[in-house]
């Protein structure tokens, strides 16, 4: 029974580790579906994390903090949106710029907030169900943000594949010239998608600083933004598969921590490499099927759009 007793907390921790990846990857998925590649997820997450934390500490409300994080993520994504959509800048370079800018800006904003503790978010316990063995805590004893992230999976799927707006967004991402010829506002739709992606990245960051750690430190995200970008490829642009990927990476992250905790003689730094190595391995496994990537990737992904061209 000891193994089973250990499994419960591991599953619960896996769910929380997956949550920031879920927010960020679902946001990036919508952005990429509209034909825009935003490599600034890491930077937007950091800005969301620090602004969310600052807002929560200042107002004393985690709800305000979370909303503040989302707003901050959307605000910096707007800079990216203006550059690539209105000023036709290279998307790869602009995304990298956003990440570098976000790293610096978050450290600058956060200098007064390092080391301040923050109360944990309350867990939403469901009487009876939370006490279930093994899965009880994982499924029914998490804070509200974990459920919000889970809720976003069907919500994004429904929006993309079962609404008219989602159809337009996908059309813009698949064939920008045809969508433009049909009278769809290519730039407007993409800008909204970029803002949504920014808000989701901001939420991912705010979840880290408000609930997961909960604290602010420079470079808090530790590459999770990049893992989220990789998850979108892993998921071949399908929301449900993002969930699978996020759980997988949450699992690797937690497994690595637990191996360290069990006192197995492996240097901690080598174990900490696991999530990054897992990302590379998973990317390789998915990407080797060129036909599948080509079939699923939005056809206009990363292309500059100018209506006169």
């Amino acid at each position: 029974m000891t193994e089973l007793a250990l499994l419960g907390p591991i599953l619960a921790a896996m769910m929380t580790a997956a949550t920031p990846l879920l927010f960020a990857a679902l946001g990036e998925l919508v952005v990429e579906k509209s034909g825009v590649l935003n490599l600034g997820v890491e930077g937007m997450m950091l800005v969301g994390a620090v602004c969310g934390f600052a807002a929560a500490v200042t107002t004393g409300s985690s709800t305000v903090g979370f909303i503040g994080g989302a707003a901050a993520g959307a605000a910096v994504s707007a800079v990216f949106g203006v550059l690539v959509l209105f000023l036709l800048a290279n998307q790869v370079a602009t995304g990298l710029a956003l990440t570098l800018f976000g790293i610096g800006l978050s450290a600058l904003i956060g200098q007064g907030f390092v080391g301040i503790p923050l109360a944990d978010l309350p867990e939403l316990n469901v009487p009876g169900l939370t006490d279930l063995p093994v899965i009880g805590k994982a499924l029914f004893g998490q804070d509200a943000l974990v459920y919000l992230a889970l809720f976003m999976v069907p919500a994004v799927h429904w929006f993309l594949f079962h609404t008219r707006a989602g159809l337009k967004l996908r059309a813009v991402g698949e064939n920008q010239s045809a969508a433009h010829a049909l009278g769809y506002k290519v730039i407007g739709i993409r800008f909204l998608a970029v803002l949504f992606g920014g808000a989701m990245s901001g939420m991912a960051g705010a979840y880290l600083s408000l609930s997961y750690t909960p604290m602010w430190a420079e470079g808090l995200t530790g590459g999770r933004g990049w893992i989220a970008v990789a998850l979108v490829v892993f998921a071949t642009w399908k929301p449900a598969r993002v969930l699978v990927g996020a759980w997988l990476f949450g699992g690797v992250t937690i497994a690595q921590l637990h191996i360290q905790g069990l006192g197995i003689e492996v240097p901690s730094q080598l174990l900490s490499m696991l999530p990054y190595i897992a990302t590379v391995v998973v990317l390789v496994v998915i990407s080797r099927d060129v036909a599948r990537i080509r079939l699923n990737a939005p056809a206009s992904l990363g292309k500059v759009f100018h209506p006169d061209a």
Partner: protein
Amino acid sequence: MSLFRLEPRGEASKTMLYATPLLAVALTLASGFLLFLALGFDPVRALHAFFVAPVSSLRGLGELALKATPLVLCAIGLSIGFRANVWNIGAEGQLTLGAIAGGGVALAFYGEGAGWWLLPLMMLAGIAGGMLWAAIPAFLRVRFNASEILTSLMLTYVALLLLNYMVNGPYRDPDGFAFPESRLFEEAATLPILIAGTRVHLGALFALLAVAGGWVLMARTFIGFQIKVIGLTPQAAGYAGFSQKRIIWLCMLLSGGLAGLAGVGEIAGPIGQITPSISPGYGFTAIIVAFLGRLHPLGILLAGLLMALSFIGGEAAQIELSLPKAITGVFQGMLLFFLLATDVLIRYRVRFGARRAAA
């Protein structure tokens, strides 16, 4: 309806190609002025402390060259890849592996009375280390179609953890009271100083050689021509029979090797040992340097000096104005944003007001 619209130019404007980096620098300074004002500093004094005071002495100019050295080395390699749409953004990791490999050689011969050959051996090891680290994304891209952007970046995190492991384990100074640092390198493992009174070391010469080599490669060789064609029109390159895979390998190995050499330059130069943090993000800043320099070797040399100034200015601002060092990153990010924003002027004219009736 819209305030402005963009009218494509017949051909790219040469004037704008060179004017926009200057415009971007001016806009960054203007934003810096506002930023310092918002933070409650006297902006003129702050900008002076950031951009002028640090380089008002020979020593300061030496620091500029010192910090430009790794930036230029990394950026030359990256720029050649960017020309071919090979997006190696893991130079930071390749630099780290170069330091691990080159430093390993220095430590292996510690106290053995090594001769003049030690430094060249360290450099070769560093180049090999950087190449090896870049070879992984190259192989995964060529063989499995995996995005080199993501794999090279993931490997950067792995490299930094590996460095941390090495200085806490195999490389740790046995007489160092368990500090995570290696021994101080011996004289034979330290790069000679080029200009007395500064910390400018032999690596600066290698950076200049890389600039010259990069220019020859891109302007005067068939391989450079292939790189440019693949970057501009991959289809045409395919019809011409240029091997894209070969170019990916070449670009990755070249940029990895140069980054590895930059890593050796840091540990055998200003640092003089292996520590957990050997680079304040040179490999990432080199991406900005490459773009700011218009992916041209001479431009990269100038851009490298400018970005080096942002590092030194950040350090000076930290001491003089007690600003966080992170302000360097804000300036660097802003500069790249402004550059990318103004780049539109190269290929388009901005027309204000609504569209006129078709002519």
